[in-house]
């Protein structure tokens, strides 16, 4: 079982439009940067066929240090939630062969 990383995704850009390896890598970075910036601004990202990334505000609550049992306040923070689309869920649950997924 492998892991898909930046190299593999840059390769798929190269395969899709024939940009050079360097340009493909730069483009991938630019896609991720655009997504990160939108999320940092609190915007959600909806990629049809894949899923939705959204930022959720969490309120202050009392946590506990599991080792010592001490009460520690957990301050308000923002967390990122990813909700996979129905298409992605089905692909993952049934295992769709390569190339059969078109979004």
């Amino acid at each position, binding site marked *: 079982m492998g*892991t898909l990383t930046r190299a593999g995704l840059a390769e798929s850009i190269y395969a899709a439009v024939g940009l050079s390896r360097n340009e493909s890598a730069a483009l991938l970075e630019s*896609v991720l940067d655009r*997504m990160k910036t939108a999320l940092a601004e609190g915007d959600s*990202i*909806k990629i049809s066929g894949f899923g939705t990334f959204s930022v959720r505000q969490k309120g202050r609550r009392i946590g506990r240090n599991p080792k010592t049992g001490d009460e520690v*306040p957990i301050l*308000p923070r*923002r967390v990122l939630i990813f909700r996979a689309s129905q298409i992605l869920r089905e692909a*993952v*649950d049934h295992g769709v062969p390569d190339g059969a997924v078109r979004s």
Partner: protein
Amino acid sequence: MTRSELITALAADHPHLTLADVERIVSALFDEMTASLARGDRVELRGFGAFSVKRRQARAGRNPRTGETVDVTEKTVPFFRAGRELREMINAGMAVAEVAASEAPKRKGIKR
């Protein structure tokens, strides 16, 4: 931001590419990630996050409307965990001291 807004923004960043090329690129990326996850592989993008699949065991569920017990079969679901850099970017708008304090208790035992 929607998929098409992302495509428009990227086309503006890369004026030497046509909108159709950018569309093909964005589709290729998400298709490749979907295919990897469908195979059971992980997708790891340092600084952004990691996608993986998790197996959920079969369980006895309940129809919330009727209260009837129904069998929920075992299934595999996609899972995403944001990377450190992205988590920090998302919280950057909040007071630095607050973030540091809320980060401190989770140094060990990262929830998986």
